[in-house]
């Protein structure tokens, strides 16, 4: 047995701001974001690595933050949904989801936004298949996906996607 619950010290830049924290080693990235930093925009859906509601970007790549230990982000850059809007203006991907009604209850949306942004960075003019593959790790129980596709296509046809 371990005498005390072991802790680790990590330094992570989240949405451009650096945080240094000491945490139990077993803390998951999603718990660090939600419960340590109060960034509750990142949701927990299945908590079993399936649904993608917890998707954030770690060093420019999407990950399921319920399946990453916080210490794996040490020294890294995390982007969450809270980091998308700039100066009170929605990010183009957010705006497109809003314009196209790419959500209903909105629970899955933070994850979809990050996955959509990543796929658009990889494929600025995605094919239907690129979109399918790009959001394959995100589940939406409401929309039937049609409007999510529409939103992504709208951004692709439109302005530059930033970040």
């Amino acid at each position, binding site marked *: 047995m*371990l005498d005390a619950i072991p802790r680790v010290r990590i330094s992570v830049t989240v949405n451009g701001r650096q945080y240094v924290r000491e945490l*139990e080693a*077993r803390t998951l990235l999603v718990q660090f974001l939600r419960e340590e930093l109060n960034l509750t925009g990142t949701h927990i859906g299945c908590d079993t690595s399936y649904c993608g509601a917890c998707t954030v970007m770690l060093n420019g790549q*999407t*990950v399921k933050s319920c399946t990453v230990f916080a210490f794996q982000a040490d020294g890294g850059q995390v982007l969450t949904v809270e980091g998308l809007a700039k100066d009170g203006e929605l990010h183009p991907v957010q705006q497109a989801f809003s314009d196209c009604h790419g959500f209903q209850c909105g629970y899955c949306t933070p994850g979809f936004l990050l*996955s959509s942004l990543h796929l658009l960075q990889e494929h600025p003019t995605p094919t239907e298949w690129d979109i399918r*593959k790009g959001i394959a*790790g*995100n589940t939406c129980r409401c929309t039937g996906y049609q409007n999510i596709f529409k939103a992504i296509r709208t951004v692709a046809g439109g302005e530059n996607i930033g970040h």
Partner: protein
Amino acid sequence: MRMYPAAFAYHRAQSYSDAVSQICQLGEDAKFLAGGQSLIPLMKLRLSTPRHLVDLGFIPGTSYIHGNGGLRLGALTRHAAIAASPDVARLSILRDCAAGIADPQVRHMGTIGGSLAEADPTGDWAPVLLATGATVKTLGPNGERSIDIAEFILDAYQTGLQPAELITEIAIPLPPQAGTGHQSRGSARWGGSGGAYIALKRCAPVYASASVAVQLTLSDEATCADARVYLGVLGLTATRVPAAEEVLRSGTIIDKTMEQVRRAVMDIAEPVSDMRGSADYKRQAAGALAKLAVDAALRRARREPVEVSHLYA
């Protein structure tokens, strides 16, 4: 805060040899951590409760794809990096596999070394690395070893790794290229190799229901000098299908050959019924996948650009 995994102490390795010596000191309750995409879900369910984790993720120079005289992949190379690499162009089967594993998020974290070490019977890498004749390089308390992949994967979740030994690299021989290895029938175009890996999945973030890996070398437009056929997912380890390989090597490949390949695969498959489908469904699927994979491998060996993707049903 609700904590799912049992508490553990964290140890960051600075190098592979540091990782090996740390784990030797920590003893049996210690585990390596790579991308965590197999281990973290197990730890959250407390199906795995290591007391110490030795993190390989911060060791510099462990993620790479070198293409000089055979492909060498660093153990910590992520699935996504393999899928995107131009260096795997001559072994399209690797891209088929890497690009089809789970979803982008999992591919951004999961590593080829972690996948092999896990030896999940439904994992995608084993059949592909068997079909391509890969070698697994390791480092342990007794030094380095090179292990033939066929001897590395022993059983479901069982590998030839010894305690405190880790995977450092996966080496894959490059198949002969069209016009170099075999000179025949006066055409420089034949003698090429091609491979393909196709899996049937219910959706991206789940493991496949059945899969087939095929790697062929042609001596002629439609005659195989060499053929390897492996079935994934349907057994405790990937299953070689010698009867299918024999059929492919035994003469000109025609429609009848494809049908014989399908039969050979269906005969050897030993699927069990589960939530992914009935045994019969999976056997039929494996047969159909084999035909598709042979067809794609053949066309690639003839230098036709063929895009292969996993099938979703």
